[in-house]
């Protein structure tokens, strides 16, 4: 092992590493976004207030049961097994041929969706009941309340958890190598196989993973801070200039 060797391996294979990293980012990013959308939809449906009677109640109960099964199933089984079942399993059993990349995105999406729906549900439950009551009092129905008042707050609150999911996805897409998706781990394995070196390629891969995850965390932190805005309202920033008592005091002191 030497630094020289590591540099050589990277120099000879940087395109493969980069392509692998690109694929990893692509799958995990699309997977996280679709997963978030699934999570939001499932979360909203599972928090619809239960009607007291009628067919609506029965339908909603059945839907809730199905969604609960979905969440339990995909949270409770390893993604590597799901990949085999969805890609090779369905191919053999039902003759469904899937594109490997689409299959990868599908697996990551529904997996993230299962986790995110619980996160979203928690986020909705944690919103102060007063926000719902105020929306209802103004005449909004459940959907309007969710879209205009609750979900924007929930999304802000679940951003850290979403970032977490994204980071987990960047790492966990590596299991997609079992269905030969050419993500970073798969590429590294090929490089290692071609050079008969194991330390150097995998070390480089780990550094690339680290760079990706740290960058993502930083970007999300920035977004969070932007969404929060300043804690104090500065009236001087308005077009309308209104003097506050402290402004008057300040001016007096300055002019003296």
């Amino acid at each position, binding site marked *: 092992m030497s630094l020289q060797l590591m540099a050589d391996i990277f120099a000879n294979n940087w395109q493969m590493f980069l392509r692998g990293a690109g694929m990893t980012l692509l799958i995990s990013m699309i997977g996280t976004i679709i997963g978030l959308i699934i999570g939001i939809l499932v979360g909203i449906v599972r928090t619809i207030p239960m009607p007291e009677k009628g067919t609506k109640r029965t339908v909603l109960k059945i839907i809730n049961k199905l969604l609960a099964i979905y969440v339990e199933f995909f949270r409770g089984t390893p993604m590597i097994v799901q990949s085999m079942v969805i890609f090779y399993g369905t191919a053999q059993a039902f003759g469904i041929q899937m594109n490997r990349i689409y299959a990868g995105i599908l697996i990551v999406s529904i997996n993230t969706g299962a986790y995110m729906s619980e996160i979203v549900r928690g986020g909705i439950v944690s919103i102060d009941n007063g*926000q719902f009551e105020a929306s*209802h009092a*103004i*005449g909004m*129905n459940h959907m309007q309340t969710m879209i*205009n*008042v609750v979900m924007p707050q929930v999304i802000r609150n679940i951003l850290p958890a979403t970032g977490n999911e994204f980071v987990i996805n960047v790492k966990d897409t590596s299991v997609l190598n079992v269905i030969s998706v050419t993500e970073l781990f798969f590429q590294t394995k090929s490089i290692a196989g071609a050079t008969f070196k194991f330390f150097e390629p995998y070390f480089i891969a780990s550094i690339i993973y680290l760079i990706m995850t740290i960058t993502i965390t930083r970007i999300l932190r920035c977004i969070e801070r932007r969404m929060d805005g300043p804690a104090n309202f500065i009236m001087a920033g*308005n077009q309308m200039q209104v003097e506050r008592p402290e402004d008057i005091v300040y001016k007096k002191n300055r002019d003296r």
Partner: protein
Amino acid sequence: MEKVIEVRHLSKWFGSNEVLKDIDFSVNKGEVACIIGSSGSGKSTLLRCINLLEKPTSGEIIYNGENILDDEHNIYTYRTKLGMVFQQFNLFNNHNVLSNCTVGQIKVLKRNKEEAEKIALQYLENVGMAQYINAMPKQLSGGQKQRVAIARALSMEPDVMLFDEPTSALDPETVGEVLKVMKDLAKSGLTMLVVTHEMGFAREVSDRVIFMDKGVIAEEGKPEEIFNNPKEKRTKEFLYRILNGNDD
């Protein structure tokens, strides 16, 4: 006098606990009615039953000649006719002051943005919050939040305004600014139903005072009658407790 809302035989049970017992009362157009009573007497529940935040167990609520507790009645349009001001303000945290006052108009009443903003600005001006249109709720003090909440409810141009202890969560210094806004509203001829612990406000502003005790309306009448010559023993006791410091 024209009745805006009429409540008939209204009962509300929480589990095995009967909070409202066969309430009959009505709100007349243009009047300011104050509901007073000790905590747990059901006054907030009554207010919340009127705009269906709590579903009454039995009884009728008549609005425009229709019983809105009928299954097929659209409760969402009914609610737009009632403005609600909460003890805890409940401003929409993700909207700024102006948008708090326009979102309901745009999404529920389907007004266009310019019109909604014009109406909102007018009411924000009335409550003295027009300078703060770009502020977020978390940047405001309690009294400011409550004034915005009042403007938000007014922006829907409701027939009746319901106030659920609007000053109870405020510090003593800011109570005055909210009460002043409410007094101005009362003078403008708005129909108001106010649950309050502010006896001064009830006495000075209201046309009718309703005293509730243990889930029933124990006594109602003109403020002078209730405050100066209460007929019922429990009204006397309550007023004595309130006006001479609590308890003991």
